[in-house]
């Protein structure tokens, strides 16, 4: 298995390298004037300041050379300096990472608690009222855009009922509830459907009949024998979703003014703060690939039939 992990880590380097080329080209080929935009709209820069800034950020050099020096810094873990804040991108992202991670963990919590239990109940009580309710609500959650769900939750729970804060993070953990639900809505729906599907299939397996034949109760048969088998693909899905969420949630963080990587990315795109955009996306790719590796390794532990080679 050690060999497998090493091979996957090497593959990951290739993915990162490819992603960085594509990103770099996208960002630096698009028209626009990052120096002017990042210093504020309509502000006049005197030519010497401008030249100094261009020199400072390598923008006076041809694109391939810019890329090589970017790659050189990246290989040492240095993501460069923000045009707007004149601070290290590493430091900026580090500040935002905690918030994004907090939100991602809360969203995963919702997914696991709500998605999995709803899926189990829907499978065990198939075609019951509850099952229909799950089907309807998951259809709703899949069909309605995250933006609308977020705004709707704000409207009901923050503005009308005044139970929870509208946005920001000043209210501590209570401020986490609405954004976490918003962020988790789509994946929770998909998780519960996946759970219902795999569980219904596993419930027809021969070894479930064997488990009943042993005299085990329905609860043990369902929550041990059926769940243990059907949850494997679900956990894989949740793991991959977690990798995506850790990279930052653009819409949710924007709607709730959540000071995470997603919000930083949106701001950086608007102000053409290319080092932050590059850094945030590179970080997102890295986390996603790493979490995927962890999920694949975990799969081998959950399913004894899988061997990593």
């Amino acid at each position, binding site marked *: 298995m050690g060999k497998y992990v090493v091979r996957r880590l090497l593959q990951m380097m290739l993915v990162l390298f490819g992603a960085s080329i594509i990103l770099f080209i996208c960002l630096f080929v698009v028209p626009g004037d990052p120096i002017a935009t990042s210093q504020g709209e309509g502000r006049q820069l005197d030519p010497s300041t401008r030249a100094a800034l261009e020199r400072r950020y390598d923008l006076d050099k041809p694109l391939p050379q810019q890329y090589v020096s970017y790659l050189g810094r990246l290989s040492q873990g240095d993501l460069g300096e923000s045009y707007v804040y004149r601070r290290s991108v590493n430091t900026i992202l580090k500040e935002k990472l905690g918030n994004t991670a907090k939100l991602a963990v809360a969203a995963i919590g919702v997914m696991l608690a709500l998605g999995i239990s709803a899926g189990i109940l829907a499978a065990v009580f198939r075609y019951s009222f509850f099952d229909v309710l799950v089907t309807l609500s998951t259809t709703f959650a899949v069909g309605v855009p995250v933006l609308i769900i977020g705004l709707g939750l704000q409207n009901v729970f923050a503005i009308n009922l005044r139970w929870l804060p509208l946005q920001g993070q000043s209210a501590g953990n209570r401020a986490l509830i609405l954004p976490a639900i918003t962020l988790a809505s789509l994946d929770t729906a998909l998780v519960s459907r996946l759970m219902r599907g795999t569980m219904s299939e596993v419930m027809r397996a021969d070894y479930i009949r*064997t488990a*009943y*034949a042993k*005299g085990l109760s329905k609860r043990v048969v369902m929550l041990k*024998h059926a769940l243990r088998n059907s949850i494997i693909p679900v956990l894989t899905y949740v793991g991959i979703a977690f990798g995506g969420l850790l990279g930052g949630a653009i819409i949710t963080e924007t709607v709730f003014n959540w000071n995470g990587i997603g919000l930083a990315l949106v701001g950086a795109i608007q102000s053409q703060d290319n080092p932050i955009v590059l850094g945030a996306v590179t970080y997102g790719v890295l986390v996603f690939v790493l979490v995927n590796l962890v999920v694949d390794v975990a799969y081998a532990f959950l399913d004894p039939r899988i061997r990593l080679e």
Partner: protein
Amino acid sequence: MTEPLLSIEDLRVHFHTDAGVVKAVDGVSWSIGPGETLGIVGESGSGKSVSALAVMGLVEVPPARYESGRILFKGRDLLTADDKERRAIRGKEISMIFQDPLTALNPVFRVGHQIAEVIQAHEKMGRIAARAKAVDLLGEVGIPNPRQRAREYPHQFSGGMRQRAMIAMALALDPLVLLADEPTTALDVTVQAQIMDLLIRLQADRGTAIVLITHDLGLVAGHADRVLVMYAGKVAELGTIDDVYYRPRHPYTLGLLKSLARMDQRRSDRLQPIVGQPPSLIRVPPGCPFNPRCPFATDICRQEMPPLEPKDGPDHLAACHHSDQLALQQSPAAS
């Protein structure tokens, strides 16, 4: 015969499906005494497994419905027993092994754990003691190196070893009755013989009654005391092995015996298959269900279902209008 341990009386299990009512078990009765082996023989779809699953309470209701009948175990009707009572019997007093030992074992739990689980479900025994007993059982069913094997997963076992593990699980609590549903069908011929030998040995040690459900007449001939032949959800013939094999009184039994390959026959003798197909259990022909395939069939067979009656002895039952004609023929088993 001694007082039956388990008896099924006029059992009707019908499945209500979109295509129609499947009469999987339609008025079947059988019984088994302590330590006895009853073979239940029939083609696939003859309803032979369903009566065993009904005994276990493993028939899913709905789509199935019990239209009539009783399942008496130690004098108690299991069909009226509540879930808790049935659960206490399942796996402890009556247990079952299945056809495909790969899919019948849970792939994500260790074999030893799966055996220990049935022990702990019924007896107040700690985890460690139950594990130790599971290892002993694996040794008893002939698995070499049982301590290490108990820690392995089903996919690390061969087909024969998986069935041995299933048997260890089923016999862990010394049940009075073992329902063996095609226990050797999925296995190689040599392994089949080993598994049957194992079952016989364990039966002799423990006095377990075995219901051996199979389509293999040879297997039943070698191992059962009595045999029940099923056709289209009904009992065609019931009797001792000698009765049924040497003096068959139902044309279906005769057909099955004629279609059996035998080592002691001349090679020029062709096997004689039963013409036609078994009926769909949704549309069973009127009268005797075997009449479209039966060489003896007359008008009465197409109109009236023959009753299951004693033929040439009180314990040899057959459901045929023309048993007398069959009595004039020599059984292929006797040749």
